[in-house]
């Protein structure tokens, strides 16, 4: 069992968690403005593809990342326009986006790169890896905290930054008011719609960055359906963490840990079963949330009687 529980397990945990953390940070912003964004998975997938495309075309990871982020803006606006402006059903738009993402990336893969299944090329430049001097040589800690890809660090910085923005700035109060009681915000002359638009665009950008991490992080390739439902997991993490970036981060780490553990247990347990583990945990997390909520409501109800 020593081969399973070692530093590499924790390292894998962080790596697997990162795309989920990024997407979940985006998703929690929309959650705070009361938009249920089920389309993150599709955004991730398209982000992954466009990151590869940008990186391949310009032989630069910067362009890859920019491509993904620009796409994120477009997708965020798309989501906002349809869900808020046109009052379409958010689930239908989200599901449509996910299905469309699957189709579009396969189509583009075949027409642009003339390949099936997956695409990799020496021209694709991966995201840089950063070593942190000083920490680098400390055993265990150095292995964990140093030598990760750029977006891993970005996600770590974003967790406290977004937490601070949501709970400590006027912007965050407007954001939350626009979700919780839009009329209250409108009554003081601020536009709830604008807050919703901002949140939706940020969500698109962060989801597509998560996608870029998938395709340019440790691999340098795009594979059909490579988001493999991580967008949904991110959504589950947001619900589990109740929209608080710190708890959402922890939930994503839990997911990463279970995934990593599953991979390493493949020696002992059939891989079909281990592959199920992260999703099983997601389901269990959701059950826990429902039980929590029920208990909380019952207490509130008792008070009222």
């Amino acid at each position, binding site marked *: 069992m020593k081969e399973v529980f070692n530093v590499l397990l924790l390292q894998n945990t962080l790596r697997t968690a990162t795309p989920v953390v990024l997407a979940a940070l985006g998703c929690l912003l929309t959650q705070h403005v009361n938009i249920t964004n089920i389309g993150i998975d599709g955004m991730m997938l398209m982000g992954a593809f466009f990151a590869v495309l940008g990186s391949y075309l310009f032989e630069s990871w910067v362009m890859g990342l920019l491509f993904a982020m620009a796409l994120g803006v477009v997708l965020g606006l798309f989501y906002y326009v349809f869900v808020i402006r046109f009052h379409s059903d958010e689930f239908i738009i989200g599901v449509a986006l996910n299905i469309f993402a699957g189709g579009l990336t396969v189509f583009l893969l075949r027409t642009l790169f003339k390949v099936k299944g997956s695409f990799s090329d020496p021209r694709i430049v991966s995201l840089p890896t950063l070593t942190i001097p000083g920490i680098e040589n400390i055993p265990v800690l150095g292995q964990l905290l140093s030598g990760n890809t750029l977006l891993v660090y970005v996600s770590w910085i974003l967790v406290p930054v977004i937490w601070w923005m949501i709970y400590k*700035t006027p912007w965050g*109060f*407007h954001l*939350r*008011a626009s979700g*919780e009681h839009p009329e209250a915000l409108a*009554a003081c*002359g601020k536009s709830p719609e604008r807050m919703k638009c901002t949140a939706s665009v940020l969500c698109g950008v962060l989801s597509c960055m998560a996608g870029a991490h998938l395709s340019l992080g440790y691999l340098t390739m795009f594979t059909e359906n490579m988001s493999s439902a991580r967008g949904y997991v991110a959504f589950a993490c947001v619900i589990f963490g109740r929209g608080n970036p710190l708890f959402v981060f922890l939930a994503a780490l839990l997911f990463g840990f279970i995934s990593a553990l599953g991979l390493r247990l493949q020696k002992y347990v059939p891989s079909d079963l281990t592959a199920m583990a992260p999703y099983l945990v997601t389901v269990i997390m959701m059950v826990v949330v429902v039980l929590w909520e029920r208990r909380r409501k019952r207490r509130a109800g008792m008070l*009222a009687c």
Partner: protein
Amino acid sequence: MEEMIRFSHVSKQYPGVLANDDVTLSINRGEVFSLVGENGAGKSTLMNLLYGMQPLTLGEITIGDQKIDAQHNPEKAMEMGVSMVHQHFKLVPSFTVAQNILLGHEPKKGLRYDFAAAERMVTELSETYGLHVNPKDVVGELSVGLQQRVEILKALRTGAKVLILDEPTAVLTPQETEELFTVIRGIVREKNMTVILITHRLPEVMRISDRVGVMKRGRLVKVLNAAEASEKEIASLMVGRDVIFDELRTKQPLGPEVLQIENLRAINDRMLPALQDVSLKVHAGEIVGVCGVEGNGQTELAECVMGMRPQTGGTVRLNGKDVSRMSPGEIRARGVSFIPEDRMRTGVDGKASVSDNLLLGKQREPRFSRFGIHMRQKRVKEYAKQQVEKYDIRTSGVDEPVSSLSGGNIQKVVIAREFDFGTPVLVISQPTRGVDIGAIEFIHERIMEKRNEGCAILLISADLDELFRLSDRLVTLYEGKITGEFETETITMEEIGFYMTGAKSQREGEETL
């Protein structure tokens, strides 16, 4: 007295309704002015015009010496010194008092929200007006009374000169009401402000107001000095005593007790007590009318009897059998029919055809279906046509969607369906709301027929004329409690008004006047 607000010949036309009809009224600085009237009398509309929620159709409104223009809106109204506290609060439950009051105008330190400064500002504001709140409290955890206080402070933040309160006491406990009145007196006296109350609770009106404007059917009937007027006078002005009663009722011996409600308790959607120990009985061949100002528990009473709302205490019995825990379907199966107050939401399926709506609940009867699954379309059509004729439903065909009918005809569809179950008990809520006069007559006659056939009928209505015309017995409901029970012949409409507004009560120790 300095004039603060002037309405001259103000009219407001909504499609099909003249909500305000040539209202001329002047309200002074430093007074508490109450607008009273029944539902739909036009008092809220008049205030919405002043606050810029709606454009006016005719006439002129001036605030101070400024005339309001066509582009008048709430923001402009606030600039001109008019603030309004709505019946439904605009507060974010998870924010603190300070965060709610300063929403959109947060003090900043760099990019950061300066919480300390916000709390200081709110403390200052609260001290200026003598409205005490703790800026750090989370609004969702406050009582309704305190939430209202936060809402008032929010309105006063911009330095308002006129404060409009829409039904401010509707959700308050008597103690909270008392506190609110202390606050109102304080700001009127010390800040020389004007407070306008929209309300229909007469005892309160008499206590707090300097002057009272009575509205009826869009018109301002009279303005009285509260000190010189009596509650009785205002009540009769509000109700208007010119309705002709043609006697529908004939004496008949009472049958056995059929519906028994004992110590019924329930909470409303806002988790507040809606019914408190309500007990009443309905005999066969009797109509019991429930009077009350809307929002005093009538809706919840009907829902509890029909099993549509969980009870928190007490029992409902049908012929002695406890049905308190039963579902609406089970209760209906035991012989109760229901005409709900909101016909579009609970009465009909708007998109379905007239015939489908008439059939609902009878679809499994052998005469309409084979083995309970295969509809006998021809018989359904025939039945629907018979019903349409019998109940005089004006429709171009039984296949038309029911939503294409007029309100009165939709109501007749509901009545036709429910009355044709032939059940011994009927719960009828607002049977003629929004229905034209001809149809009212028709519906009243059908209800009376049911009574004469020996049905036990619980009738809930906001229309006193209707209740007096149909009921054998009347009970008054005020704040979820029964305040009185009368044989219809033994009481006048004015008198019952006291019980409806809580000024009088038959329950011991609850006389408030």
